[in-house]
């Protein structure tokens, strides 16, 4: 009975266990909410969902299971573009070929075909998923077809929208020597450290007890102090290059502050969105990379994850396999971000872009949704909110 609902909820990554399912059965047995769909909905929600962040997911699954009206959202995003993108990538995505094609002058024609294909896609799935909703008819146009299009041989990133930028970027290692002027950020970051004397664990303050007892004329007067421990481990992932160069300075300040604040601090770089690789040093970008899987396995879930990035890119770079601007990625960035979030329940995304512009950039919306709204601006106030979230 309702086992379908249970399995679908688990599939949607809502943490329900057998215990809750049995509780629901028990409640049904007690005839609570047995004769009314609304009541059953309220009841199952109260019994199965334990976090308001999951309420929306629950509603979708509930609607899907009992009405069959909507399918769970994520499937479409991956399915559609896979086929045609694969084809596209096989044919066009190496630099040599690019030159070839350009030399042959066949680019226009190829793009034309691509456009037709895309138009089809758009027609069929217009209302379907978010990423399609944010774009026009042809996300892969080049040379002026579409501002979101494929750009070749251009190194600027002026409108923060390029889907494909071929040029290799000059990445700079983030300089961590800037300390002056970062005092404010340091103050906020310091809050992450839980060792401040706010814990509930008390220990005997022996010197103070002896003194107080002596003051008391020999009668025992015990003094306690909160226990002191610093167990905070931080995993810092920084977006570098591309549209982030504009924000490098802000980023550097945060970075240098973070360096001095944590004992257990691991940091890695990524570009635009998380994929299967991260790297430690920008100079060794091509050789010194680390598999993200390895990262997930090396650093346990007790690490607190701080992602720093402007999340300003083409929505494709997040939602579509092969969407990366630099290489062919077999799995979508969203999948990798999801994996990170599953491993690190304490995670925030810090965004140097002004909070007011977030609404206007589709990719920020996508990332925010991925992060379950845990995106904060790189300001003192934002840091404050982020650290509060991390401390929970």
């Amino acid at each position, binding site marked *: 009975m309702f086992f379908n609902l249970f399995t679908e909820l688990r599939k949607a990554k809502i943490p329900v266990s057998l215990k809750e399912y049995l509780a629901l059965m028990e409640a049904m047995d007690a005839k609570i909410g047995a004769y009314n769909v*609304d009541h059953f909905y309220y009841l199952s929600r*109260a*019994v199965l969902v*334990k*976090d308001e962040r999951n309420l929306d997911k629950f509603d979708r699954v509930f609607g899907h299971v009992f009405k069959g009206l909507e399918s769970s959202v994520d499937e479409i995003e991956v399915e559609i573009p896979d086929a045609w993108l694969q084809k596209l990538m096989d044919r066009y995505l190496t630099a040599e070929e690019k030159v070839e094609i350009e030399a042959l002058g066949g680019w226009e024609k190829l793009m034309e075909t691509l456009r037709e294909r895309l138009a089809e896609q758009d027609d069929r799935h217009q209302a379907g998923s978010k990423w399609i909703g944010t774009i026009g008819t042809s996300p892969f146009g080049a040379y002026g077809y579409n501002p979101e299009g494929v750009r070749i041989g251009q190194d600027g990133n002026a409108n923060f929208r390029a889907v494909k930028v071929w040029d290799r970027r000059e990445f700079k290692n983030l300089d961590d020597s800037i300390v002056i002027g970062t005092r404010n950020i340091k103050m906020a970051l310091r809050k992450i450290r839980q060792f401040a004397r706010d814990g*509930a664990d*008390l220990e005997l303050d022996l010197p103070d007890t002896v003194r107080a007892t002596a003051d008391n004329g020999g009668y025992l007067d015990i003094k306690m102090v909160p226990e002191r421990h610093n167990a905070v481990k931080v995993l810092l992932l920084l977006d570098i290059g591309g549209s982030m160069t504009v924000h490098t300075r802000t980023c550097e300040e945060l970075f240098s502050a973070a360096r001095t604040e944590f004992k257990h601090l691991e940091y890695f770089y990524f570009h635009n969105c998380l994929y299967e690789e991260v790297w430690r040093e920008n100079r060794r970008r091509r050789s010194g990379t680390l598999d993200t899987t390895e990262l997930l396995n090396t650093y346990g879930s007790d690490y607190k994850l701080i992602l720093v990035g402007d999340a300003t890119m083409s929505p494709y770079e997040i939602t579509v396999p092969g969407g990366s601007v630099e290489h062919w990625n077999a799995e979508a960035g969203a999948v990798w971000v999801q994996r990170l979030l599953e491993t690190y329940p304490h995670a925030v995304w810090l965004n140097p872009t002004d909070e007011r512009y977030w609404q206007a950039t589709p990719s920020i919306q996508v990332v925010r949704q991925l992060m379950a709204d845990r995106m904060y601006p790189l300001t003192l106030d934002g840091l404050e909110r982020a650290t509060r979230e991390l401390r*929970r």
Partner: protein
Amino acid sequence: MKFSSTDSYIATEELMVAVNAAITLRRPLLVKGEPGTGKTMLAVEVANSVGAPLLEWHIKSTTKAQHGLYEYDAVSRLRDSQLGDERVADIRNYIKRGMLWEAFDSAELPILLIDEIDKADIEFPNDLLRELDRMEFYVYETKETIRATQRPIVIITSNNEKELPDAFLRRCFFHYIRFPERDTMAQIIDVHFPDLQGKLVNEALNLFYEIRDVPGMKKKPSTSELLDWLKLLMVDDIPPEALRSKDMKTLIPPLHGALLKNEHDVHLFERLAFLNRGEGRS
């Protein structure tokens, strides 16, 4: 035993279902929601509604799970022994019962409110798992087990400052009190101020929801703040027209101190007022 809206508390249908499920199955009910949406009041009202005594356990950052069970006051026993007090012989004299013990021992079926559980240390909920599950605990000092004669109804509130552990959540029912919609809000006001003129309520509600919609507010005003504000409006006898007036001088609502609790928000409002004034001129 059923919970429904009382003459001082408006409960939505979803809340009623959740509360009744918790009452029937005797599982703890975890209530979350924006501050000021009546989480703590809920326990009081449930107690009123079902006619049960209410035991309140307010949690602070230094509260330990043990405090809810019992405390053994070793220090005063040590002191008494130095003073040669006779009470020293019996350890029971130094065991102080906590709220949970009181609830387990209560002759009538009690309602236990564990208020703001997120204020406590992160391990706090874990330390209460067995106690809330089996409704029993062991007193080491006297070597006895305290068992609940009847499972009390437990209502737990959280302001979401800390994440609660999964094992704990699994044992609870959960309800998130959403911010009331306009209709519900009108009912709530009606319950609190039955003699308030309808027009004033209407204007006040308009203004209130407008304020909540202002982007970038640090602390949105909540139900309890609205009620306070209305009380002030009534005391000051402010006519409904004053709230509607688009006169730019009064764009900041009268007696806004009850609604806006943050100088950032007040500034935001003043800025908006200033901008609007500019529009008005052009």
